[in-house]
């Protein structure tokens, strides 16, 4: 048979797979490897979606998504970050940020165009760039600097083929929140080199002791920025697959073309649920954020005691400690911890080479489970500590 797509064949499968299969089989395994909230969607949101289905909201919507939802998102973004997006022409409801990311790339890239992103990064970035015919250019960050985007390295990575910078703050997997000053510098660089900025702000509502800066709100940024956001993390709505893209009208028009011919529209029940979330979800967002914050403080303190050094993450729900004191590589650590203590974590190297020497722990897990997992990790590390 003829060979399958080169672009797809060249992309390695997700590095998590191998551990997933083991972890799924182990009986009393505690997983700190999950990248989604442990809360279920707040009941008022689920209830609103049930109502919508009962009322017959079972159809396609506009390709752009429900106008009322776009209006609410526009108002929400305006109130929170002072950014102005027209619900008529500068917004698109997507099937999660995942789709937003994919269609951003396809709308922007010509074959060979380079997209710079900082790693450790979410695992989908490089593949999405590759699928769109582009070239991913990962730029490492340093854990001693709290995984802040390194502007100097960014400058060095820019070539004549660079098309866009892709950002994700608050960050998965490091929990880093980019400072306003760094983001301003990135905007200056983007303007200087005429680059697009794609910003994945799915974790925008989960920040602790820090403020989230929406990069589109910085002077000169909005005209070259695609802002991607969604409901999965803030409202515990991962399974609803609902997000949005905001960008200048001519970019949205291109993204919309891909969306129209491939996705058609985001599911209507999820769009109705998202409306309810924006309308009445604020207290729940804050309740969950507070709960994450308490776990975060606890887990950071305990990890440092255990010897797995970590800078307190300021966002998302991950800690990304160094495991160097054990002398193990990330995958060895993960595998041995899984078999010996039945705790699942994600090896840092799957998020990029500067993630080597780290593992990702999610604190989107109940407190008693976190406690037990830390207890086991402590026992594991104490046997190996050098």
């Amino acid at each position, binding site marked *: 048979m003829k060979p399958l797509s080169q672009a797809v064949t060249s992309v390695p499968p997700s590095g998590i797979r191998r551990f997933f299969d083991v972890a799924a089989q182990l009986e009393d395994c505690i997983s700190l*490897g999950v990248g989604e909230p442990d809360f279920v969607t707040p009941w008022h949101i689920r209830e609103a979606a049930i109502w919508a289905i009962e009322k017959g909201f079972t159809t396609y919507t506009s390709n752009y998504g429900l106008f009322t939802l776009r209006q609410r998102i526009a108002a929400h973004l305006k109130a929170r970050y002072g950014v102005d997006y027209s619900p008529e022409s500068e917004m698109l409801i997507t099937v999660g940020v995942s789709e937003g990311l994919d269609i951003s790339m396809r709308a922007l890239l010509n074959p060979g165009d380079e997209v710079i992103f900082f790693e450790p990064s979410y695992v989908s970035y490089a593949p999405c760039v590759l699928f769109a015919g582009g070239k991913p250019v990962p730029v490492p960050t340093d854990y001693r600097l709290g995984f802040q985007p390194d502007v100097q390295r960014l400058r060095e990575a820019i070539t004549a083929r660079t098309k866009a910078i892709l950002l994700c703050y608050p960050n998965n997997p490091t929990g880093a929140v980019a400072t306003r000053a760094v983001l301003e510098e990135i905007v200056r660089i983007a303007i200087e080199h005429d680059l697009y900025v794609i910003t994945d702000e799915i974790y925008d509502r989960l920040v602790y002791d820090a403020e989230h800066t929406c990069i589109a709100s910085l002077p000169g940024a909005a005209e070259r920025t695609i802002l991607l956001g969604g409901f999965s993390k803030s409202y515990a709505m991962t399974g609803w697959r609902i997000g949005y893209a905001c960008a200048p009208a001519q970019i949205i028009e291109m993204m919309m073309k891909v969306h129209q011919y491939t996705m058609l529209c985001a599911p209507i029940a999820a769009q109705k649920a998202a409306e309810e979330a924006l309308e009445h979800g604020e207290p729940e967002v804050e309740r969950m954020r*507070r709960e994450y914050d308490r776990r975060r403080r606890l887990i950071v303190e305990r990890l440092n005691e255990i010897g797995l050094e970590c800078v307190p993450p300021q966002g998302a729900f991950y800690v990304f400690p160094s495991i160097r004191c054990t002398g193990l590589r990330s995958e060895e650590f993960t595998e041995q911890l899984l078999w010996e203590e039945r705790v699942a974590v994600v090896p840092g190297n799957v998020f990029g080479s500067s993630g080597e020497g780290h593992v990702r722990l999610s604190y989107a897990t109940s407190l008693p489970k976190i406690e037990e997992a830390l207890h086991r990790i402590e026992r594991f590390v104490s046997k190996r500590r050098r």
Partner: protein
Amino acid sequence: MEPEKQKALLEILEQDARTTPEQVASMLGVDIEQVQRTIQQMESAGVIRRYKTVIDWDRFGEERVFAFIDVKVSPAREVGFDDVAERIYRFPQVHAVYLVSGDHDLRVIVSGRTMKEVAAFVAERLAPLDRVQATYTQFVLKRYKEDGEVYAETEPDRRLVMAP
């Protein structure tokens, strides 16, 4: 400790009274002494009443009957309903007493081992009290949620064990 953190401390203990001062301290980013001191203050001020455990007696296999009893009371000068309420809540069988708006004046929750026992309590203790004009008893058939606790099977964690 700042009022905001005091409130957070109370919320944490309300959710799980067994959270240790060490844990509370790291969750709130304050030192342990401060946590201990605040807890003591809250205890002596009566803000923290006591620490108890939520038990599902049904699951343990012990039957308990609960009834809501709406009580009509003629109020008295100077004391209103307070003295009657007090006479009622002193009985250990009485789980809760509220002054309520509407057709009746007091809502009393009574528990007992059997319906007979609860009925006897109403007939012999509650109804004959001075100024109690009428009682209206409703037995609880099934308890779904109480004090924020849902008494159903806990829903399983449906997430995949690992996800990026």
